């Protein structure tokens, strides 16, 4: 045994004499860090790096089988899922790995923001981190395109339509993105090149810089309320802290990183095993239009925002908000590079994170069930509840038929079933008079199309008669006070003479 040990030491020394990397690497790993940085809060950056490595490994393995052409990509994914041993697991790992990576990069960013770690001297580390976030999102979007299914095809259509709104150069930008006049083979090739060569190259380069700066500038010391960052004194204080409380990064601090990274990897594996790979959904055939395209999870909030913006605001918001948002993130450390780090003394930071988290959460949640979308088959699949047909006249029942046939259910729910785009109709007569219902049906308005051309007079009469019977739990019908007066003859002056 000592012979073997001696042998391996000799081999190591042979390489070390030529490479000279071992000693500096060991020195770097064992460099002293302030003891208070060995925290479970400081494990997200290393976890993101570990997932990046997982993505590269699984990505290379997927590329061995994937065929990046519009005519074959979808088939090659089916082949991976069903004909290649454990191909489905590889796809699932890569897909879930991407979701975990976006999530952990976001958590890392929030943690760095709340701990004030972006302040002097780590401003540039933060700025590079902003670009790493954008590149990670770029990987997520381009990866979703490579899954070249229906969602990917129409997702590209959405991307092209957004780009086409850029003033002046919108048209050329669309051409640049699609690589041709339509979404086709060239488009997929472009996104393949971006996803496999361009963005990963930039990502790896910037991750290298990011880590280098963490090593050079030290891990952010644990913030304490009242301990302010001053450019003149910070680095001296940090080195004193390092000298006084320093512990070797490996293993005293790094064991937490390693443990967390392992937990995250186990979580990715568990999700991949349990939930399997994402899609592919239907074939990327634009002639199959019976589809409701939807982006992947991390872009659902954007999908929801695009549904709720008023038409006139959409283009300005689409192009001004990202510039403001990214600009603010880049400028943040430059404008607030000194001062308080502790979150208890930075209420604005807490407010910003809370507002952003709640908005993104709400929009993402809305994106999961898209209440703004008509349900295209509701009119043939959801029947009128039997209770709503009891004790109705033949005309009113005919109206219920009209309601079904004219696809009102695609946007309006009755008895809890149907679209959510328009209001539920269960109690419509409780707040609209017959006249108001007629007007609304024929002329539309308030985000409802006019049905004057789609209904003949008898259909309209029947439909409105049926709608006036819908009063929820027997609410009083809505009445028009002026009509009541008109029916009782001219308004009596006596009622107003008191004034």
């Amino acid at each position, binding site marked *: 045994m000592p012979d073997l040990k001696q042998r391996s030491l000799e081999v190591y020394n042979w390489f070390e004499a030529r490479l000279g990397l071992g000693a500096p690497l060991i020195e770097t790993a064992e460099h002293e860090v302030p003891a208070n940085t060995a925290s479970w809060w400081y494990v997200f950056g290393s976890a993101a790096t570990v997932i990046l490595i997982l993505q590269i490994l699984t990505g290379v393995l997927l590329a061995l089988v994937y065929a990046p052409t*519009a005519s074959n990509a979808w088939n090659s994914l089916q082949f991976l899922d069903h004909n290649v041993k454990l191909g489905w697991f590889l796809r699932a790992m890569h897909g879930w790995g991407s979701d975990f990576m976006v999530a952990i990069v976001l958590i890392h960013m929030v943690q760095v923001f709340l701990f004030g770690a972006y302040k002097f001297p780590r401003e540039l580390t933060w700025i590079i981190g902003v670009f790493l976030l954008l590149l990670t999102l770029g990987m997520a979007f381009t990866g979703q395109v490579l899954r070249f299914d229906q969602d990917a095809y129409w997702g590209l259509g959405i991307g092209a*339509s957004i780009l086409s709104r850029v003033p002046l150069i919108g048209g050329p930008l669309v*051409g640049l993105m699609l690589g041709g006049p*339509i979404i086709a083979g060239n488009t997929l090739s472009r996104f393949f090149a971006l996803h496999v060569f361009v963005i990963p190259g930039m990502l790896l380069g910037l991750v290298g810089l990011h880590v280098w700066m963490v090593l050079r500038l030290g891990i952010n010391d644990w913030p304490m309320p009242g301990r302010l960052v001053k450019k003149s004194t910070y680095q001296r204080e940090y080195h004193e802290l390092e000298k006084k409380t320093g512990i070797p990064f490996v293993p005293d601090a790094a064991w937490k990183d390693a443990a967390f990274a392992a937990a995250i990897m186990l979580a990715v594996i568990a999700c991949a095993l349990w939930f399997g790979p994402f899609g592919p959904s239907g074939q990327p055939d634009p002639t199959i239009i019976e589809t409701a395209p939807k982006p992947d999870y991390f872009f659902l909030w954007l999908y929801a925002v695009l549904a709720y913006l008023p038409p006139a605001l959409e283009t300005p918001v689409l192009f001004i908000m990202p510039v403001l948002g990214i600009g603010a993130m880049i400028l943040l450390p430059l404008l607030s590079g000194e001062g308080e780090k502790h979150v208890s003394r930075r209420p604005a930071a807490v407010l910003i994170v809370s507002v952003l988290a709640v908005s993104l959460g709400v929009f993402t949640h809305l994106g999961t069930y898209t209440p*703004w979308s008509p349900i*295209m088959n509701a009119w043939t699949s959801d029947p009128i509840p039997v209770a709503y047909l009891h004790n109705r006249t033949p005309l009113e029942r005919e109206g219920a038929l009209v309601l079904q046939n004219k*696809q009102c259910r695609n946007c309006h729910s009755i008895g809890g079933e149907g679209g959510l785009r328009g209001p539920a109709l269960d109690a419509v007569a409780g707040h609209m008079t017959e006249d108001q219902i007629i007007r609304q049906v024929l002329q539309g308005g308030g985000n409802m199309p006019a*049905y004057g051309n789609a209904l003949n007079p008898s259909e309209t009469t029947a439909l409105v008669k049926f709608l006036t019977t819908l009063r929820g739990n027997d609410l009083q019908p809505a009445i028009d006070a002026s009509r009541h007066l008109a029916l009782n003859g001219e308004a009596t002056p006596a009622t107003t003479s008191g004034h």
Partner: protein
Amino acid sequence: MTPSEQLPTTDHTRTDPAVETAAETTKDPSIAAGHSRRVFLFKLALAVNGLVGVVLAIPIVGYLLGPALKKTSGENSWINLGPLSDFPEGETRLVNYRNPITNEWDGQTGDIPCWVRRVSGDTFQVFAINCAHLGCPVRWFAQSKLFLCPCHGGAYYADGSRASGPPERGLFEYDHKVSNGTLMISAGRMPTLANEAKTVTPLTQINGSPAARLNAIDQPQPRCSSCQT
């Protein structure tokens, strides 16, 4: 050859630092004398590299920007959608066509659907499948006479005008014409807000009588996938 033969027989690669520094201190003074000449040559070499870079950049930028600089009118051409008898009056039907510019490896993505509405006689409207909001495929509902978009709920009336929802405008319409009993549309590029389906100027400008013009345009064009007519 065994692996051991490939290795250097002895480990002499580690140089003695003392030897290196000794060599430095006894540097030939004539080496320093040529310093400014070598600096000049280095700068000259850099300049040549810069020139090479510029020369290389021209084709690279042209290659990258190629798809962006094509004119819309160059990509649209007249496509036969079929005989008029395929389109009953008063109905709106989904018709698929093969995009005039496609590659062999485009597969199904080269097949583009569109909505054809025959109002009456020779009066047609041909709508793009793409919603004017964000390009999702709109569906026609004959009973309520509406086009509905599944993505964000854009709605359009039978004539393509905006009914409700996030779109700012009506559906994109293709230029069309009826000739020799068939319906033809001018298409080729995905319609977006920056590039509406309609071409500003007619694609083919042939002077002469209207009949001659139509005949010249309406020669049956080969529908092969790779030829760019």
